[in-house]
C-alpha cells in the first residue's frame, strides 16, 4: 500500500557493543518531519508541510493582490511580472489546450501554477528546504480538485450520458476492438488520470529531494566521519555535484508545476471537446 510509505516502523535498536556503523544512506524515513505541537490535541496535525501550504497560499495571494492593486497602463515591475505570468498561462496553456471557451478556466490554472511553483521551490529555498508535495497526501488533494473540475465541466457541457460516451466510446472503432478499448479508456480517463497526476508530482519531488540528501549527507560523511584520506579529499566533488543537482532540481520543479497545469488544461479541453 502506498499509504504505508510514511508509517514505517522505526529502525530496530542497535545492540550494545556493535562497532561504529558505516554510511547509512538517506531514505524515505528522512521525510518524516517531527510534529511541532507534540501532544496538543487539536493542533497535532499541524506540522511543517501544512505550514508551508498555508505560507504558499499567502505568498501567491499576497503577490497577486499587491501586483494588481493599482493597475496602470504602463505596468510597474510587479504588475509586469504578474501580467507576464498570467499571459503565459492564458496563451500557452489555456488557449492551446482548452479551445475557444478557455477564458473561464484561466484563473484556476494561474492559481494552480503559482501555488505548485511556490510549493516546489520551497524544496531548494534556504531555511525551508522541504518540497511540500514530497508528502503524497498533498498531491492527492490537488489532483482530486482537478478531477472534480474536469468531470463536472464535462458533465455540464455534454450531459452525463454524453460525457461517459465521449470519454469511453471513441468514434470510428470496429466493434470487436471496443471490447478491449472501452474498459481501457474508462480506466485511463477516470481512475489513472488523477492517480498519475498526483504521483508524478509527488514522485518527482520525493526523488529529487532524496538525490540532494544522498549527495549532501554522503559528502558530509566522507568529509567528517570517514577514516580514509582519499574519501576526505574527494568529498568536495560530492558537494559540488549537490550544487549542480540543486540547479537541476530548480528546473525540474518549474517543469513539474508547468506539466501539472498543462495536463489539467488538457483534461478540461478533452471534457469540453465536441464529438467529431
Amino acid at each position, binding site marked *: 500500500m502506498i499509504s504505508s510509505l510514511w508509517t514505517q516502523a522505526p529502525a530496530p535498536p542497535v545492540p550494545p557493543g556493535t562497532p561504529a556503523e558505516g554510511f547509512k544512506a538517506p531514505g524515505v524515513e528522512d521525510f518524516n518531519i517531527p510534529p511541532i505541537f507534540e501532544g496538543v490535541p487539536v493542533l497535532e496535525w499541524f506540522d511543517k508541510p501544512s505550514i508551508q501550504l498555508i505560507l504558499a497560499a499567502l505568498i501567491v495571494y499576497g503577490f497577486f493582490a499587491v501586483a494588481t492593486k493599482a493597475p496602470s497602463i504602463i505596468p510597474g515591475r510587479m504588475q509586469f511580472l504578474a501580467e507576464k505570468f498570467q499571459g503565459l498561462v492564458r496563451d500557452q496553456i489555456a488557449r492551446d489546450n482548452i479551445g475557444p471557451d478557455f477564458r473561464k478556466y484561466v484563473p484556476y490554472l494561474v492559481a494552480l501554477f503559482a501555488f505548485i511553483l511556490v510549493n516546489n521551490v520551497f524544496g531548494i529555498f534556504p531555511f525551508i528546504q522541504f518540497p511540500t508535495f514530497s508528502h503524497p497526501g498533498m498531491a492527492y488533494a490537488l489532483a482530486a480538485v482537478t478531477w472534480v473540475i474536469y468531470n463536472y465541466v464535462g458533465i455540464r457541457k455534454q450531459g452525463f450520458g454524453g460525457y461517459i460516451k465521449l470519454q469511453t466510446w471513441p468514434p470510428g472503432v470496429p466493434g470487436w476492438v471496443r471490447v478491449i478499448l472501452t474498459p481501457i479508456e474508462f480506466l485511463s480517463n477516470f481512475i489513472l488520470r488523477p492517480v498519475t497526476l498526483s*504521483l*508524478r508530482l509527488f514522485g518527482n519531488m520525493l526523488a529529487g529531494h532524496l538525490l540532494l540528501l544522498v549527495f549532501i549527507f554522503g559528502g558530509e560523511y566522507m568529509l567528517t566521519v570517514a577514516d580514509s584520506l582519499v574519501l576526505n579529499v574527494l568529498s568536495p566533488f560530492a558537494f559540488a555535484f549537490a550544487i549542480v543537482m540543486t540547479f537541476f532540481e530548480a528546473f525540474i520543479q518549474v517543469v513539474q508545476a508547468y506539466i501539472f497545469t498543462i495536463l489539467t488544461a488538457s483534461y478540461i479541453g478533452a471534457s469540453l471537446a465536441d464529438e467529431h
Partner: protein
Amino acid sequence: MVQGSLNMVGYGLSAVGPGIGVGIVFAAFINGVARQPEARGQLQTIAFIGFALSEALAIIGLVLAFAI
C-alpha cells in the same frame, strides 16, 4: 556484503523504457522545430504532454518500488 532492497534494481531496469520514450519524444520535438521553427510554441505544449505521459510509467515504478 551489499545490503539494500532488490526493488531498486528492478526499478532501475524498468526506468529504461520510459527513458527511451522521453528521448523519442524530445527527439521528435527537436526535429519538428528544426524543420519549422515558427511552430515551436505549439510543439512545445505537445512535447511536454508526451513527456509527462511517458514519465508517468517511471514515476509509478518509483512509487511501487518504495511501497511494495
